[in-house]
């Protein structure tokens, strides 16, 4: 894990049982997230794109343990020595044959993991660490408690963690709201007294109140009017400069994600299929799905021939995922091997990862990960 990586998610897995009328029907699962790994550098924005059902929202919720993962681990704000020590230990464990030594190593690994893996944290440690990772929701209406005044709403994370004495509460609230452009006169107002754009600002204020290191933005501008979207995007950029915070930016509007992200990861049926810096991804998408996505997004000033698309298909069912590459059915570049084996996410160009057998590597394997 490179030096300045703030967050590293490894092999996230999450499945939901298929419910038929309240009870899980025969053990079938919706495989929402199937082995997702990625890192987010400090003070950078990673965009996450994909269509509905690709697992991006589930991934976001896994990071905060709003839902518990079925598998995987998460290093958040950890010194690289610690995580590397754990990785080394686990590699050693893998190689070790002697059962007694194994038990000792397992115990050691377990202890290390509890200190380092976000998913293993107990309640009190989790509570403390959570403040460093915050969330902005899509719908500003429902993300604010309609019965609470906004001064209470924005300071709630602080009060819950005992960071702000009761007397200071209003002052803190005023400061935070000023950052997002809400005047102090609004302190005692209720959410419904504000417009959608303002409510989203309040939501942002709540997220940054505790000076988090990472803010997960889940479709933050999708519910807003077009003329307001730019205000909020600019605000997010300004906050990033000022607070030095990282963003995981999820949106289905590709234009927005490409604009605001430094790097972008593309998801399809619960896996990351490509990842690259934004500009590079736009100019030279490697994965056939990314190419499809970019080709269909309406672009102002670019005429795109969409007539051929009337015959296009849809993603496979998440309950019965086909073996091999899940994009096989729709892929114009498919090979025999694609149906049999699942391609791994590999570096095909410097800084550019892609999970596709049809894409040749133009990078020589080196020691950098």
């Amino acid at each position, binding site marked *: 894990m490179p030096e300045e990586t703030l967050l590293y998610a490894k092999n996230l897995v999450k499945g939901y049982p298929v419910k038929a009328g309240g009870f899980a029907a025969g053990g079938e699962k919706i495989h929402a997230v199937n082995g997702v790994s990625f890192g987010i550098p400090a003070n950078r924005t990673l965009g996450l794109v994909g*269509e*509905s059902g690709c697992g991006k929202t589930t991934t976001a919720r896994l990071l905060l343990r709003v839902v518990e993962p079925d598998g995987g681990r998460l290093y958040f704000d950890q010194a690289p020595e610690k995580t590397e020590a754990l990785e080394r230990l686990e590699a050693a464990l893998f190689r070790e044959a002697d059962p007694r030594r194994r038990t000792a190593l397992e115990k050691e690994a377990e202890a290390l993991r509890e200190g380092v893996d976000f998913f293993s944290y107990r309640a009190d440690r989790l509570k403390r660490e959570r403040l460093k990772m915050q969330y902005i929701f899509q719908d500003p209406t429902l993300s604010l408690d309609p019965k609470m005044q906004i001064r209470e709403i924005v300071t709630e994370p602080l009060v819950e963690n005992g960071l702000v004495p009761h007397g200071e509460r209003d002052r803190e609230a005023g400061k935070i709201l000023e950052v997002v452009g809400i005047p102090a006169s609004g302190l005692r107002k209720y959410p419904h007294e504000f*417009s959608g*754009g303002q409510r989203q600002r309040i939501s942002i204020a709540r997220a940054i109140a505790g000076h988090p290191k990472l803010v997960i933005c889940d479709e933050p501008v999708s519910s807003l*009017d*077009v*003329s*307001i*979207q*730019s*205000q909020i*995007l*600019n605000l997010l*950029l300004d906050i990033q400069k000022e607070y030095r915070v990282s963003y995981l930016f999820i949106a*289905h*509007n*590709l*234009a*927005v994600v*490409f*604009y*605001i992200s430094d790097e972008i990861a593309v998801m399809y049926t619960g896996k990351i299929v490509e990842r690259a810096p*934004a*500009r590079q991804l*736009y100019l030279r998408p490697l994965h056939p799905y990314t190419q*499809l*996505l*970019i080709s*269909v*997004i*309406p*672009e*102002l*000033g*670019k*005429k*795109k*021939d*969409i*007539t*051929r*698309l*009337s*015959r*296009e*298909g*849809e993603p496979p069912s998440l309950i019965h995922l086909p073996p091999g590459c899940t994009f096989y059915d729709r892929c114009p570049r498919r090979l025999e091997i694609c149906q049999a084996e699942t391609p791994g996410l590999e570096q095909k160009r410097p800084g550019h990862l892609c999970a596709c057998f049809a894409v040749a590597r133009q990078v020589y394997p080196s020691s950098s990960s």
Partner: protein
Amino acid sequence: MAEPILKVRDLTTRFRLVERTITAVAGVSFDVQENEILAIVGESGCGKSVTILSLMNLIQPPGFIDPASRVLFEGRNLLELEERELAAVRGGRIAMVFQEPSASFNLLFTVGAQIAEALRIHRGLSREKALEQARDLLRQVRIPAGERRARDYPFQLSGGMLQRSMIALALSCSPSLLLADEPTTALDATVQAQILALLKEKSSAGGMSVIFVTHDFALIDGFANRVIIMYAGRILECCSSREILEQPAHPYTQDLLKAIPRLGVFKDEQRLYSIAGRVPEPGNLPSGCTYAPRCRLRFGKCEVEPELLRAGGNGKKNHTVRCWLFA
């Protein structure tokens, strides 16, 4: 120039609320030509959906359409037709597609049955013939295994397939005009592209005009022929899709185009333009030009509401704009 198939003149729709009466659509006039795709673009609350509903006289109390409004279709004013005559037009000559396909289908009947029903009502086909055509229509809208899907219930179809079914339903009686109110907003990008391609295909092939309501500017390019920009219940600009992108006249249009993130433009190149203020509420409109409070180019004359004016010479015959800058 050929006779437009739809002529809307002075369409005004108001809503009588407890405290006051608000005007959702004010004096909207436009034409739709044959085989033309007209896009109505605007943000929420601008009155675009109300306009569409008003065209087919679907406004319910407390809303009411001003009697001076005229919607001329095939020589008749739709707003003056009897319910029975109007019902014959709806579905038969003019069809509608909405944002939520699941809201348009009855969950208790199969998709095929519902399309067949429309065919029986408007075309007088027998039950077997109607079902057969329904199946064929589902195939035409490119639903995979369309014929078999006719026996599915709405909840068994995905959003994209359901929307295509809705289009099949709309197309079933070969209407000459299709009204589409944000049909792709709830759908994924790839599905959206497919639906647009389908509509374009049907429009150019089958002699059908489309009025497409959306809030997404980017859809216009390569899809719509002409564009109407609406704001606060009024038309601010009306021109071809090429002109709106290359030479937008109204300050609002220009500002909007600068505020929207464009694919291919990154944050280190350009900061998005922020339009000051917010969209006015229908009940609380400013006097004079409705965009003036937010307009960077406003001047004295803007205290009076502008009329629809010609947007300059250069052979721009069909470019109108509601702004005193062009007086």
